[in-house]
Every structure is written in C-alpha cells, then in structure tokens.
C-alpha cells in the first residue's frame, strides 16, 4: 500500500504506525501522489508523540536523524526514513553501525548529504546590509535547512537582525534580535545601506587578488563550490 504524508514529523510518525505491519508499504509525500490507491494520513499528534517516546527509548539519536531525513530534498527521502526507522523498531535498538545493511546505508548517505549542505551553506550564505542595518541573504538550498542555518547565524551575529530567504521554498527564517521564526516569503524588496556597494566591491577585489591564475583548477573549484550555489554569492555577480 502507498501512504501519503504531509512531510511533518507528526505526519510521518502517524504514517509509520499505520504502515509498519505492511510488508509492501511505501511512504510518499502528499505532492507526489501516484495513480492508483493510496491512503492519505492525517497527522495524529497524540499517537505521534507516543511513537516518538518509544523511538527515543530504542535509540536516543534517531529522532534527530528523522528530523534531518525529512528535510532531505532527494526523491524517496520519506521512504528512506521509514525503512531506517523500521529496522530500529524491528531490532529494538540503534542500527546506525550496521553499515553493510542497505537501509542503513541509504539513510546514512541521505544524512550525510543534508549535513554536508548545512556545512557548505554556513560558508556560502552571503548577507547584504540593508538601510536599516538588518542583513538579508537569499539562498536556494537542495534541502530544507534555512531554520538550522538561522540558528547558526543567530549565535554568530546576535546583535544583527537578519532574514534568511529560501527562495525555492518561498519561506524565510527571521531573527529580529529577540526571536527566531519562520515565515512564508515570496519576494523581498531590500533597500541597501550606503556602504554596501563599497564592501561588496572590496570583497570582489579580495577574491580576485588571492587567486593564483597560473594554478587554475576550475574542475576542483566546481567540485567544492558547485555552480548552482553561486547564483547568490557576491563574488560571482
């Protein structure tokens, strides 16, 4: 049977409870509804909470992993999460060391991709300063990670309000100096500060001055900094 979930943790755990006895269960996100019979899962927070507690007993770290897996932008990520948690439930404990098991391997790879992108984006995000002094950064990550990034920047720049705008998912993580929250955001109009242009120019100057042209290795550069990330980076504009 095919089970459709809404992508939230509660939705997923409710679906898990419905599907876990079913040998042929496939979990899909709602927007990927295939032709043919499906069960649409309505999240049940109470039952989800119970499942959550049980999973925490079985493996203290697996709910954090679930959170990451649900953020994954890959095709089939919900099924990957399902198979991974199913194995935990079946074996009654952590399975992340079973690296030769296909379900564990898949989960590990998906987790690694999400973690890798978070790591990368911590570096690749580019803020511009608005006239009000707040910082604005548009980005378009593969995985749904703006809120995680926002927590990172909140710790780093506690005194600067900022907006991290995921233009692909049309939402933003906002730090107003006191609260961190998510908000839907289609388009942002930003008035830049008087100095912004000057600093951007200096950054471009720096970027081209540190390069050693005689050692050009563009393939390597592309590997580390894939072209799709460059769209919002000052030094490539």
């Amino acid at each position, binding site marked *: 049977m095919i089970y459709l979930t809404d992508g939230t943790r509660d939705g997923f755990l409710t679906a898990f409870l419905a599907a876990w006895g079913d040998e042929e269960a496939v979990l899909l996100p709602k927007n990927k509804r295939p032709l043919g019979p499906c069960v649409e899962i309505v999240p049940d927070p109470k039952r989800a909470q119970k499942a959550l507690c049980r999973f925490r007993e079985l493996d203290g770290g697996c709910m954090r992993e679930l959170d990451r897996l649900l953020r994954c932008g890959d095709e089939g990520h919900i099924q990957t999460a399902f198979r991974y948690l199913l194995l935990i439930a079946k074996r009654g404990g952590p399975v992340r060391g079973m690296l030769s098991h296909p379900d564990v391997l898949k989960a590990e790879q998906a987790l690694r991709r999400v973690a890798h992108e978070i790591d990368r984006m911590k*570096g690749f995000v580019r803020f511009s300063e608005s006239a009000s002094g707040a910082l604005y950064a548009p980005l378009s990550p593969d995985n749904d990670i703006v809120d995680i990034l926002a927590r990172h920047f909140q710790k780093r720049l506690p005194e600067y309000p900022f907006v991290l705008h995921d233009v692909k998912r049309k939402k933003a993580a906002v730090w107003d100096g006191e609260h961190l929250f998510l908000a839907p955001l289609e388009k942002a109009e930003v008035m830049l500060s008087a100095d912004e242009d000057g600093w951007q120019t200096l950054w471009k100057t720096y970027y081209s001055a540190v390069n050693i042209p005689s050692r050009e290795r563009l393939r*390597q550069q592309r590997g580390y900094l894939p072209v799709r990330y460059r769209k919002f980076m000052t030094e490539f504009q």
Partner: protein
Amino acid sequence: MISEEKLKILTESAKYDVSCSSSGSGRTNGGGMGNAAPAGCCHSFTPDGRCISLLKILLSNRCIYSCRYCPNRADADVPRASATPEEIAELTLDFYKRNYIEGLFLSSAVEKTPDFTMERLLAAVRLLRTKYRFHGYIHLKGIPRADAGLVSEAAKYADRMSYNLELPTEASLKLLAPQKSTESLLSPMRQLVKEKAEFKEEHKKGHFLPAGQTTQLIVGASPEPDSRIVRLSEALYHKMGLKRVYYSSYVPVVQDSLLPTLPVGQLREHRLYQADWLLRFYGFTAEEIAPEGENLPLEYDPKCAWALRNPQCFPVEVNTAPLEMLLRVPGIGGRGAYKITEARRYAALDFGDLKRMRIVLKRAKHFITCKGKYLGAKDERAVKGLLALGARQDEARQMSLFDEPERWSLGGADSAGVLVGAAILGGAGSAGGAGEGRMLSPAVWLLGTRETALAALTGEL
C-alpha cells in the same frame, strides 16, 4: 574604508607561499573559537581551487629584511603599502558580518623594526577583541626578534599564532634568510608553549591561544631530504606541541643565484602532507615513514611504500584485524577503518559489503583478505607494478582530494583523526582538556563516545 588599491597590494603580497604571509596555501584553517564553528569553514573557492576561509592579509609589505626567496624583500621593486590597525579591524568586521570570512589571518613584513611591526599587529587584534568585541577566529603571525612582552600580550587575543621555520636547517636559513635564525623563531615558540602551560595552571577558564601554534617549511629551496623534514615535524609535534606543520613547495617568484630556478613538483609537497598525516593520525613514526637520508618515494604514497617494505605484515583479515592494523592498509583511511570496525560487529564482511560501504578497494585489495578470500595480485612484483604511479590513473584525482581544505579541523584534528581517536579509545570519553601535541588527543578531546563519533559521520558535530 580601506582603499581598493591598498587591499589589492596587501592581499597579493600575502598570497605567495614564500613570504611572511603564508602558512600553507589555502590549507590554512580556522578551527575557530568564540563564535566560530568548531569545524573550519570554507566561505568560497577561488579558480585555483583553494578555499577562502580567513581574510589573509599583510598589515604591511614594506620590509627591512631580505629573505632571498621572498617577493617583498627590501630590495625588490614592487608596489608597497601599509594599512592601519583600524583599517584592518574594520575590514575584518564588515567582511565577517556579511559572512564572507570565518576570521582573520594577519601577518606583516618587518616594517621599520620588529617591535614596531609587532606593536601594530597587536594593536589590530586588540582593537578587534576589545573595542569591537569580535569573537571570530584570529590567526596572527609572530614577528621574529620582537619583544617578548609584546608576544605574550598578542597571544591573549589571538586564537592561533605561528612562526614559520621556513627551512629545515640552520645552515639553509642562514644562507637564504640571513636576518632570521632558527633561535629567533624557536625561542618565541618555546615562550608561548611555556606561557600557555602556566596559563592553564592558573586559570580553569579563559583562553590562551586556544588553537595553538603552527609553522611552515618551504620544501625544495634547500637540499635537505624528506627524512630530515619528517623527523623535524615529528619533533615539532612531540616536543613543541604544534598543531600543524605546513609544507610549501618552493615556487621561484624571485631570481636568485642561490635558489633553484625550477619549481618543486607539487607531488613532493603532497607526499609530505601524506607523511604528516601518518605521523599525526595513523600511529606511524618518522623512522617508519622515511628511512634516514632518503626522500619519500614519488611513485607510491608513503603508506603504500611502508607496506611494500613490510610484506610480512600482509595480508590482514578485515574481519579480525585490530584497528591499528586496518589503518596501516594502503587505501583504507580513518573513516574506512572506522566503518569496518563498526559494521563487522554485526556481520562478517565480504568484498561486496566493503564495496557497498564505499570503501575503495583498488589498492586495499592487495593487502587484505575478507573471510579468508584474497583478490589481490599474485606476487609482490605484480603488486608493485599495479600500485606504481604511472600504472594508476587515480593519482591526479587523489591529489586534488587530498588538497581538500580541512573543513573538519579543530586546531589540528580532522575527521579521520576524530574518528580514529574515538575508535581507538573504544569510546573512552573524556580526556578532559587533553590535546596539546600528543597524537590523536585533539580528536579525543572533541569526542566523547562512539555514538558521537558516529554522529560526526552522519551529521554535523
């Protein structure tokens, strides 16, 4: 705001591997404290494939010294500039705020006198830390022969300091950098080691050079063999507690009768980095890596070369070999060895399993068995042939892999080290505050248990 012209001059004179600026091109790494992430972070990559993590800049390129290999030496005809401490502080803050950089790597040519220069470097970092309350990462180059009081003062504000030894022997240094001496470089290094120890005695909290000290050696400008260099590094790690030694292959930016005219191949530098890795994280000694008087072979990586010299140790059975031995198998790295020790607790592994776990068998297969099965070449000669450089296509790719900026490092640990450290200790947690100089220890310090080691594998730390 600093002028574009000045920024350009001070950046360009900081980018050469042989000058006061450098500490390993692009490999230089943060490992920040304060508000910086524990894992070093690349903010951009230049077309030459290097990582930009820190704002790497000279305070001044006006030099009274004449190191023969350096483009900024006193008698060179190049554009000169000096920035003010205020300009540097402001630039750092505004770059940092926009997330262009992870911190500052500040150095300087010797302008007027060593003390004058050190005072200005100190002024810049003090401004950043006190007036602007900047908590990002700061790496400060020390100026040889500067007043000891200025040096200890600077160490209060910097995360890391470095004095570059540049050349492996006193004789070479005398010849090529006549105003420096080994003692003028080693004595502030020793002073900082001592002060750090004293600071730790007296204070439970607070920082004193939390990311320690590093140094750099230029390879190939002078005649010392690799064995000499590897032994020096070993001593620097053990006795000085250095976090990293960087190697920089000599590139002639300057014509000089005492210097080679041809650049040293990147391959030699690459081999030295591999050897350094073996020293720090794989439990090898300098003696094992490079027999006295010899260079590292270019056709094999140093681990391979060791394995070929010691055929009696192989093949090892992956399902039973201790971790220390797995780490000695050519082609199996820290992560691979760790994965194997984890996975084999659940089921005996065969070659298919290793493949699925993405363990590269190309080289390893000649040195291991899986459930008693061997897939490698028949005899030693065949193995040698298959592993030599010309026979392998993957060396170029490997080299670029190896150049990967150490995004994981915290004052010198790296992901391999972290995992290896945690695994070797079998999850024995807190070597609290350990970590000066002994192999693996920063790794242990980073990680408590097996679980967290795995978290490092699958998630961020």
